């Protein structure tokens, strides 16, 4: 009989991208050293474009110098995946979890992230599906509603998923999202007539779907995120 698995969830509100990267790096080391349990960051970013390890910056359609004019930052990262946009009203989850303790490889992990988002979308009557081969992510018809980009380091995950609640979709016009041309980007707001609750509730629902998909026995919600972030800064 396996021992109970706990997921610790940090609700962080809006976090600058670089700050969240530094926090994740620290948590990955701590998770690798077994100092912390599986941890999940639930947050949003200010307008930010990010690139993956393959540095596919040909998919950024405006000059970098134009980005400050539209109030956005650009960051190169070590995650998998192509270019994407993060911004207000897009729910981001960064699981920092040990894949070895559940015997998962990259494929199982990503498929479970997709299932989490599909399950979440169904709460609002939205029939989402996983992408076809080479189109990892979550789609409603031919419209992309959820993106995935992950890094696995000694079996510990970082980065994660981004689900569009109601972001300003115009930001996506400046990129070839995820390197897939001719496919639209969509959001929960666009795909459902259901009245959406507050974003705090939406984040909690998405987290619960992920916790269920990964068979966690317990979810512990960590309070006072500003204290957590300040502590990280001081160290």
């Amino acid at each position, binding site marked *: 009989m396996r021992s109970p698995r706990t997921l610790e969830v940090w609700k962080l509100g809006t976090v600058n991208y670089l700050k969240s990267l530094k926090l994740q790096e620290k948590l990955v080391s701590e998770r690798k050293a077994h100092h912390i349990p599986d941890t999940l960051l639930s947050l949003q970013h200010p307008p930010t474009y990010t690139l993956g390890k393959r540095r596919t910056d040909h998919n950024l359609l405006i000059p970098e110098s134009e980005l400050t004019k539209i109030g956005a930052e650009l960051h190169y990262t070590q995650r998998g995946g192509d270019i994407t946009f993060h911004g207000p009203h897009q729910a981001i989850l960064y699981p920092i979890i040990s894949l070895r303790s559940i015997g998962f*490889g*990259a*494929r199982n992990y990503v498929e479970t992230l997709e299932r989490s988002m599909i399950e979440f979308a169904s709460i609002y009557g939205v029939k989402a599906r996983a992408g076809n081969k080479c189109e990892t992510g979550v789609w409603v018809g031919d419209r992309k509603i959820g993106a995935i980009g992950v890094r*696995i*380091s000694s079996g510990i995950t970082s980065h994660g998923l981004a689900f569009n609640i109601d972001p300003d979709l115009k930001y996506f016009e400046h990129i070839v999202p995820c390197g897939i041309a001719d496919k639209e980007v969509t959001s929960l707001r666009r795909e459902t007539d259901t009245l959406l609750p507050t974003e705090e509730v939406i984040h909690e629902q998405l987290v619960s779907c992920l916790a269920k998909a990964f*068979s966690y026995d317990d979810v512990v919600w960590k309070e006072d995120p500003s204290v957590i972030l300040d502590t990280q800064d001081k160290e």
Partner: protein
Amino acid sequence: MALRMWASSTANALKLSSSVSKSHLSPFSFSRCFSTVLEGLKYANSHEWVKHEGSVATIGITAHAQDHLGEVVFVELPEDNTSVSKEKSFGAVESVKATSEILSPISGEIIEVNKKLTESPGLINSSPYEDGWMIKVKPSSPAELESLMGPKEYTKFCEEEDAAH
């Protein structure tokens, strides 16, 4: 909780898995773990293999590893003449929008890197033990090879790891 325990024990009885992992649902790919663990190689618990021939050790990732990764679309490898350390990362592969670090099973100096992987990263999937080799290393501590797993041990390790979910 009780419902999940019932479902899980029923699934075990029926030899099914509740996860969507292909490798669990397909008995073929389970036996693939047995049939494609090669004799004569040593294995790390991070799923890399080492072939030691004379003063050269060739390193790559196993059939089990490539199956769990999915289709590899990008490989990042170091330059020749850089060094590797046991259990430290020397490169990465990308599959299904995930970059996974590759760890070296041994320490030493890289004498050759498989440049074919830049153009054809899929060789790791189609030929993990032959054309999909990643680096050739001059081992600095041959004793490190002793602490790696043999084929039988590695097969059992894969079995136990897959059963964990």
